């Protein structure tokens, strides 16, 4: 290995760059289809979303090359500073930010608005990589767990203050990267268990039940009673079937887990009922199929009059499932081969909500069909797996951890964004990377990816 400085673009993983390019351009095509009106078909019209997106693409391309021409070492050395700048920006947005859709998330810069939350992930990724690679920790003590939690939690709290629950959720992604670096696998199992138990709590808590002696109370107490009974049964089983020297430990585990389960289900119920805003609550209920019986509505919808009623704007306002249903209908309307580019009736007639931003996947699915939606999912899986494999080939732990952060963030966005469009996740407004309209998100994801590509390009010459 020569120590001579190589050309900056040598060793760049061009395949990833090509996949990136395909996604960005395909996204732009579909933004055009979603937003174009017949009277103004110029794709480069800067007053329209697609024209702006084209400009964002140019800026992002410039940004990408800028990053590729930088020294990878810069990101390692300046990780703390970069992180701090973004934390400052997140603090600043709370003071001078403008509010859109209820979240004070935007900093107005001349004609354009920046969303610091979209860039903060880069800072967190770099900072985590820096911290872990410096301390060589594998999370078997409390201090590194706490430190990692702090690095992730600080921006998360600031984002929660905006409040922007969607962006906040993406920070969960970093747990996958931590897991790779040694965080106990139990975290994933507990996480999965919490999701299942949380869903159960919400479902049972949705109904109020008239209890004997206690009167009408939340249905979650039934679930809690069941948990309590199961815990008690376990206690008896331990007393009768376990040798005495092992009993003490098992008693403790059973007691703690039962108490945790009871506390968790009660607090989930309390959160949903008391803390979440009405529309967030409704979204969760809709996703779980509680707020409206979706199947009944679907059956009724085949009747034209009901279909017309569903189209009423008045109806839209008090119909919590409207967006979710329209997105799903649009996806279903795509069929195997799609309605054809620029020809999706649900898209063209504005039934699909937030067509060029969060619901761009609906547009793609309707116009390109199963082939198209499959291709997009496959492209993302390819990109994520490719980044993971690239991360694994790093000699530098810093680069590897950062790579995992990048892959995890893309994965979480895919999980939530596509999930909400196809009705498997609640409606949470986060973009589909590279494809949704938006300058901040496109530039943020571009920087996120290309910093890793820069680090990867130096993998043979760098030990960190």
């Amino acid at each position: 290995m020569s120590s001579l400085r190589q050309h900056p673009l040598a060793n760049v993983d061009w395949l990833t760059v090509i996949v990136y390019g395909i996604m960005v351009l395909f996204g732009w095509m579909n933004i055009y289809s979603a937003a174009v009106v017949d009277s103004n078909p110029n794709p480069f019209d800067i007053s329209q979303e697609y024209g702006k997106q084209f400009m964002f693409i140019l800026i992002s391309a410039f940004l990408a090359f800028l990053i590729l021409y930088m020294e990878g070492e810069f990101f390692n050395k300046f990780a703390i500073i970069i992180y701090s700048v973004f934390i400052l920006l997140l603090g600043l947005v709370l003071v001078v930010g403008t509010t859109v859709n209820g979240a004070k998330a935007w900093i107005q810069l001349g004609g354009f608005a920046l969303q610091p939350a979209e860039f903060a992930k880069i800072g967190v990724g770099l900072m985590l990589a820096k911290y872990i690679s410096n301390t060589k920790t594998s999370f078997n003590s409390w201090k590194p767990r706490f430190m990692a939690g702090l690095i992730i939690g600080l921006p998360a709290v600031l984002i929660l203050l905006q409040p922007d629950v969607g962006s906040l959720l993406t920070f969960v992604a970093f747990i996958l990267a931590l897991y790779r670096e040694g965080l106990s696998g139990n975290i994933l199992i507990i996480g999965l268990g919490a999701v299942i138990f949380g869903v159960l709590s919400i479902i049972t808590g949705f109904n109020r039940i008239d209890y004997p002696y206690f009167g009408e109370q939340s249905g979650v107490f039934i679930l809690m009673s069941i948990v309590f009974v199961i815990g008690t049964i376990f206690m008896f089983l331990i007393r009768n079937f376990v040798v005495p020297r092992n009993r003490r430990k098992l008693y403790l585990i059973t007691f703690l887990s039962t108490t945790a389960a009871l506390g968790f289900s009660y607090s989930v119920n309390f959160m949903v009922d008391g803390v979440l805003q009405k529309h967030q609550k409704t979204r969760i209920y809709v996703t779980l199929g509680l707020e409206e019986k979706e199947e009944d509505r679907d059956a009724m919808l085949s009747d034209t009059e009901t279909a017309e009623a569903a189209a009423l704007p008045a109806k839209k306002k008090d119909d919590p499932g409207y967006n979710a249903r329209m997105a799903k209908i649009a996806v279903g309307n795509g069929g195997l081969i799609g309605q054809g580019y620029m020809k999706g009736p649900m898209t063209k007639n504005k039934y699909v909500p937030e067509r060029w931003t969060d619901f761009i996947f609906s547009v793609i699915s309707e116009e390109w069909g199963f082939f198209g939606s499959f291709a997009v999912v496959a492209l993302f899986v390819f990109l994520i797996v490719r980044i993971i494999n690239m991360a694994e080939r790093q000699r530098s732990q810093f680069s590897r951890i950062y790579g995992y952060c990048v892959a995890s963030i893309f994965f979480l966005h895919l999980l939530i964004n596509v999930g909400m469009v196809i009705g498997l996740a609640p409606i949470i407004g986060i973009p589909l990377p590279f494809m949704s309209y938006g300058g901040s998100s496109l530039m943020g994801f571009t920087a996120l990816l290309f910093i890793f590509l820069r680090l990867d390009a130096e993998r043979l010459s760098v030990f960190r």
Partner: protein
Amino acid sequence: MNQYDGRKITIILIVCVIAIIYVIRLFFLQVVNSTWKEQATALTEEEIPLYPPRGIIYDRTGKMLVTNQTVYNLMVVPKKVGAFDTTSLCKLLRIKKEDIDNLFAKARARGEFHRPQLLVEQITPSDYAAMSEQLYKFNGFYAESRTLRVYPQSVGALFLGDVGKISPEEFKKKPYYTKQEYLGKSGIEKAYEEELRGIKGINYAFRDNVGNIKEQAGDKEDKPATPGTDLVCTMDADLQAYGEKLMQNKRGCIVAIEPSTGEILAMVSAPTYDPNLLVGRIRGHNFNALNNDPQKPLFNRATQAQYRPGSIFKLAQSLTALQTGAITPQTRIHCNRGVIGCHGSHSNDDLEMAIVHSCNPYFREVMHRVVEANRDKGSRFRDARLGLEIWQGYIKQFGFGTDVHCDIPGVKTGSVPGVSFYDKWYGKEQWAFSTIYSLSIGEGEMLVTPLQMCNMACVIANKGWYVPPHTVKQIGLGGMPREEYMKRYQLDIAGDYFTTVINAMEKVLQPGGTAWRAAPDGIVVCGKTGTVQNAGGKEDHAVFICFAPKENPKIAVAVYTENAGFGGTWSAPVATLLIEQYLNDSIAESSKPREKIILDANFLDR
């Protein structure tokens, strides 16, 4: 390398499992389950019907009888209405402010605030022209064109029929129509609805999420509307108009048919009305007025009134008796006025003279011989049953008791009483000819429609057959009538027997006959008068049927004038004047006095 390297696989697995779940979900949404596509279609597509213009109806000489006129319906989409100058709009549309408020309230209640609502119906083109200059100022208001029927000749209202909004019952039975559509309600408009209406087209349009309609179809190609087929009807508009004029101030009807073809040349039901009265915005008001008129102008007497035929029925009796062999043309019967009255001076007529004199005892005996021919030697009652059965079979061949297979909706069949009728009435074997003899002179339980009377005249003119009376001559200009109106119904009566009857009918209009004063110069008309008595001291109904000329008849006419008096005096002149008009295209000076008497006559108050 460290102990956690294997976790890469776990993470990749998580990603892949989620991706596979999503792809399976996508596959079910997009490929397996088709209900989403149906929902999308129901949401986004609007099928706008394209209404074709209704077919135009011409008379047999090419005059336009029914055509279409464009009118405008003023529509409003409440949601699109901005602030506007209420006073000037109300002045422009000649409506009250409350009308708009009520309509908006109704639309809101029905949840149709974003849908077009009908504000003012059927604005005439000239009124619309004045409005349209101003209308653009008012957002959400616009005009939609519709067509209405219009009748340039103002004749033949009941013959042509009318068009109206579909009723809930019709809507259930006929899936072709939408709730607001118009269709033929009576006459030719109803009978030839499928030809006249054409075929609706479909304009596939998109509806966006707030209900706006975009006139731009998807991949589906629009279906253009096929215009309705034009018809040439059998009516002669001049003859019809003349008939309506002759029947002014009278109650009754005229049916005129071309015997060789069954084509109805004129069909008047008096009092008549101008069909243009029942079109457009004035329809509702006028319909109520006509419907409440005690003279019942909306009742088609030609096809729906069931009268006792009176003496004209003796023609069918004669032919039946000749065919069954009960009499010969030479049979003489004494005019015995003991059982049944008669008129005029005669005592022992043969058939021909009995018809000319309309001798009641003669025809009583004729039917007696038909019905009681000693077919059953044991019982007079059983004999009468056998005889009446045979008699009824012949009478029905003339079209009596049937719809004469015509194409006019709502025709009545009248009644030819038979064995079962009298069995029910008197009891089995409780009646004989002596019980039912009033049938023999066209009185009693016998009921016929004027259309059937005219059809009998056609049978006689054709010497034994008829083509079902019909109203449409050509479907499509230069086309053919429906197939069933080109075939003959042959009676089971020998042609020779008709000669005697026709000769007798000729004499009816010669000096000494009952209608000799009505005979026009230069035309040989064969006819038969009838005078039907009314209970309650009311004036008799005047009946006359005839055809002309005697050789190669061109027109058969039946005239029934209610409460007018003698058939020969009041109905015969109407018929002969019509014949004159039809055959000569003018009324001779010699006939003018008769025309004046008829035109001056007024029987409405009787």
